């Protein structure tokens, strides 16, 4: 609870400046991002023959490019990773989708924010960013919904950010 409190103080400062580009929960997560930033930013570059895009940055920081429309606990801080679920959870088959720009190649990619389900809130690396987010009447791009649907349990543990395609015409 101490860490949340720190994040709140952090968020208060951040908000007072009114310059942040992230939502209030994201701001709460700011300090965790800061904490994870004690981890040196590891380039996650991949071989050229690899169809995945090159990336860099800290996948456990709320600032990471894939999280432009996420809302929840980053699975990488919960025993999973940016694209896998923690042990004993179940990945939701359907979810909401964001379109985020990869700073490495300047391209936009479609990111699927599949939730991991069946255990209670991980509690780590809470992150909310709302780029392109829309109200729940547009569910496929709404991060206010719990997407633990079609899973054996409705309970939300954390969120992944899985690249499922590149966006054209952006």
């Amino acid at each position: 609870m101490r860490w949340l409190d720190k994040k709140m103080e952090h968020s208060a400062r951040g908000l007072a400046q009114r310059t942040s580009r992230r939502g209030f929960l994201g701001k709460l997560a700011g300090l965790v991002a800061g904490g994870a930033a004690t981890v040196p930013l590891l380039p996650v570059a991949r071989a050229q023959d690899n169809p995945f895009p090159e990336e860099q940055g800290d996948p456990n920081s709320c600032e990471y490019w894939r999280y432009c429309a996420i809302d929840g606990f980053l699975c990488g801080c919960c025993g999973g990773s940016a694209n896998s679920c923690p042990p004993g959870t179940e990945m939701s088959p359907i979810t909401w989708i964001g379109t985020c720009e990869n700073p490495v190649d300047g391209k936009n990619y479609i990111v699927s924010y599949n939730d991991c389900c069946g255990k209670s809130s991980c509690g780590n690396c809470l992150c909310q960013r709302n780029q392109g987010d829309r109200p729940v009447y547009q569910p496929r791009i709404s991060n206010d919904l719990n997407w633990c649907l079609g899973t054996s349990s409705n309970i939300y543990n954390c969120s992944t950010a899985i690249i499922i395609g590149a966006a054209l015409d952006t």
Partner: protein
Amino acid sequence: MDKILATVVVGAWLVTAQPVLAEIQPEPLGVVETLPETYPAHWIIVQDGSFFHMSDGKFMVIDADSDEPATRFKGMFNGSFIPQFYQAKSKPEMYVAETFHSRGNRGERTDVLTIYDKRTLAPIDEVIIPPKRASQMPLLYSLQLVDDESLALVYNFTPATSVSVIDLSAREFVGEIPIPGCALVYPMGGRAFSSLCSDGTMLTVLLDDNGAQASSSRTEAFFDVEADPVMEKAAIIDGIGYFPTFMGNVVPIDLKGTTPSVGAKWSLVGGEAGGWRPGGLQLTGSDARGHLYVLMHPEGYDGSHKDPGVEVWVFDPDARRRLRRLELELPAITIGLTRDDEPLLLATNINLEIDVYDANSGAHLRTIGGFGQETPFLLHGSH
């Protein structure tokens, strides 16, 4: 009963307890406090989503006039897994739509509408509903009552969308109304509700005497889902819903009848410079005078629609005129108002404490924290 049992059993314990007792009058055992049927106007109900322990959400009844940390807490009741909440106006009942699993975070899912007595904060009944209740951040229009509060309507998302209809007098689930492509429940006059749709229209469903669908209708598209989508977080004042838009406009929709009438969009911002936009979790409210309150932030951008607000702007919605700007002590994510003529403006600040303001003067009266609140997502004035 409890009191008798209590006395007896404690007596039994004391037979073996050291040291033995001298003769004084013991205090009564088993006493449980109760609350008035109508809460004082400045009591509020804090809806804590318990985002870090969602299966153990709480609703806390707080005297927002009090500066005494201990005694301003009047009681609490639970709500499981980001519940939806509705407080009846015509009877001393409160409703919680909630979700349980047979093994806490796993096992069979059961959704229920739990009915609470405002005087005891105890559940007096429950209605089991289809396990489809929308699981999402708390929104006022996920659970509503219509037809003189005789029918409860619960919004479902599986991701197919529908509405569960509960007959509150019979205390039974009577049916499910599909609302494909649409979401949420906005109460209409009579046995009807409306929903916002992804094509920019509003769907309206009229219910028959059995709570089944009698007829449905759709408005013309009245907003551009790409350029300037309406927010679902409307304030309903005298039967007119005021829907803010991402870009800082507001669309008034008359919900008094059984078919909505969409009014002309007007701007909340007018000529104001600074890129002001509405934003937050629950960002609108209203008072007994019928004034509209909107949580606002400057330097808006794509994605700022849930950022905390730093001011609350108060409007006369009939005159489409801004009456005052209230600067907040701390940025806030949610606002609420009390029901009286000297209303309090309540704001969940970014430390997740409750700031209490005089809604007329904007004076900051107190900050209420340290009452076990964790993530107080919604603030409800009481009835």
